[in-house]
């Protein structure tokens, strides 16, 4: 009609750099690639990481310096002293020595379960969500079934069936992973369903990428924060449920974990005899480790959920928060 654009100003193809809002100057320390998926450095994250690192180092290096935790002495149930910093058990074993080995055992199981459960949930959640159709129906039915089965009773039944002599830490880890992946799979599926309809996935398909490459290269990196948070969550859950199982006497038979320590403390009537040095340290370590991981998880949440995010990330970015806020809103609006 008559509202044809006049062939005057702006019609020319603009040379590079003259476009409005042209290239911003390369900011020092801009976040590219992997750095962008890392959480911002906050006090929350620092405390969480600090707790986790200290406990991990304790479990990793402690057993090297500690004595044999099984050594029996004839000084049963003595309180903390210069020789035994955390006192002794009923049979005169050093609690600190036991604590180092138990921490290592718990961390091992937590890590194993975390890796296995995350892998399982990624398999069922991401593939189901991307493939859609009958595969998705089957996978989500399966994970829903796993989700409604009450976890701890099932774990107790399964561990009860496995003979005690075959009940190694691998078996326990497997059982915990098999019962603990379903919730994460549902979260990942939901996230994948939203990602697979993004234009950049369609663009990758138009470019001719194979489905597995679309999943691994285009979708998975954008799921990393979710995956990391699910991993951290499943580590917490695994350490807690392993402690529960061991406390019930259904844990791994050949390993010592924080749960078995509590189990022996309970059997030795530590509570009744007010031997707090026996049951408080393992409980405290479980609580502190869970707290540390939860704090890390909260920091990861800020990546996943942009509403929790501050306008600028890091101290340098905070100075130009005006422009980056607009950017953040834009990138989340799509």
């Amino acid at each position, binding site marked *: *009609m008559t509202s044809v654009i006049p062939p005057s100003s702006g019609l020319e193809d603009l040379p590079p750099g003259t*476009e409005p*809002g042209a290239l911003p100057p390369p900011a020092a320390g801009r976040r590219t*690639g992997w750095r962008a998926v890392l959480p911002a450095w906050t006090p929350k994250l620092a405390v969480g990481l600090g707790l986790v690192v200290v406990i991990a180092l304790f479990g990793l290096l402690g057993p090297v310096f500690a004595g044999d935790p099984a050594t029996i002495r004839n000084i049963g149930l003595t309180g903390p002293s210069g020789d035994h910093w955390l006192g002794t058990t009923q049979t005169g074993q050093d609690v600190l020595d036991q604590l180092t080995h138990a921490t290592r055992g718990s961390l091992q199981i937590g890590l194993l379960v975390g890796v296995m459960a995350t892998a399982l949930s990624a398999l069922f959640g991401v593939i189901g969500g991307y493939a859609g159709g009958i595969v998705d129906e089957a996978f989500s039915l399966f994970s829903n079934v796993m989700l409604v089965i009450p976890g701890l009773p099932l774990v107790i039944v399964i561990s009860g069936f496995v003979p005690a002599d075959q009940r190694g830490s691998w078996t326990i880890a497997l059982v915990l992973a098999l019962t603990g992946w379903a919730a994460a799979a549902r979260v990942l599926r939901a996230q994948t369903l939203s990602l697979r309809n993004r234009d950049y996935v369609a663009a990758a398909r138009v470019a001719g990428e194979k489905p597995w490459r679309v999943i691994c290269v285009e979708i998975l990196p*954008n799921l990393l924060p979710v995956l990391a948070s699910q991993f951290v969550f499943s580590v917490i859950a695994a350490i807690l449920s392993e402690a529960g199982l061991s406390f019930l006497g259904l844990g791994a038979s050949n390993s010592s974990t924080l749960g078995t320590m509590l189990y022996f403390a309970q059997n030795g009537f530590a509570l009744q005899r007010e031997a707090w040095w026996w049951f408080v340290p393992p409980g405290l370590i479980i609580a502190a480790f869970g707290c540390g991981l939860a704090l890390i998880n909260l920091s990861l949440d800020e990546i996943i959920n942009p509403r929790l995010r501050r306008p600028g990330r890091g101290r340098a970015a905070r100075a130009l928060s005006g422009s980056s806020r607009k950017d953040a809103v834009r990138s989340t609006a799509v």
Partner: protein
Amino acid sequence: MTTLEVRDLVKEFTLRSGLRRTRLRAVHRVGFTLVPGRTVALVGASGSGKSTVARMIARLEKPTSGTIAAVGPDGARIEDRHYRDHVQMVFQDPFASLNPFHSIEHHLARPLVLHGRAKGREQVRDRAAQLLERVNLPAGLMDRRPHELSGGQRQRVAIARALAPGAQVIVADEPVSMLDVSSRLGVLNLLARLQREDDLAVLYITHDLATARHFSDSIVVMNRGRIVERGPADDVILDPRHPYTKTLAAAAPDPELRGRLRSADPGPEASSDRDHLTYDHDAGRWVDIDADAQAAVTAA
């Protein structure tokens, strides 16, 4: 040079609500031809099926029936596995069509490698830099990530990505509707220049009649999945025949008549007896696609 022939394209979606299934015909017997060096604008309101046509041409959706064939310069149909070397798409939203995780280089390098246009890291970087240069972006942008670019820059990258496989047919699905008004013309003129240089066949999908006329040679108007009018750009816009096209043309604001409506308010879209007909400006007559198909069937 590649020509894209679209014949009798039909797309039906199955809608499920509970146990009941209904079928929605999103695209009904759409056909057109894209010729090298020429632009066809596909105009229609939201929901008229124009994006579905684009997605079928890009092979993101399977047509329910009908054919989409890329024909090479020798007149032979291009095989399916080479189809994507020839036909590429530019998406509407430049903020969604680039993966926020990857650098600009990744977006250009992948199609180059996948379509065998470059081998080895050095060559791929060289070709990617050339592509950026062609869309008026500095090669230094390669290591940036999409969120560091403006909308216009992103859309240029998306255009470069579509060119990377050496495509001869470009489907541009509302390429400027999400951009600032200030960068729209830049992107449109870039497309026009690339088209001149490479003799590209372009399908320009839009709901904006003004840019459709400015940018394209012929216009195809779609309404509710059907083509209601087709012909040279000026004819369709200056002499609209179908009631829907008339409504569409009257809806465009006219700067000369500020504050007043160009025509009387057309009111709710009048359903006329011509709803199922197509006005063909080239033939200069009304065409009934369904009747023609039936006639063809009875003749055969």
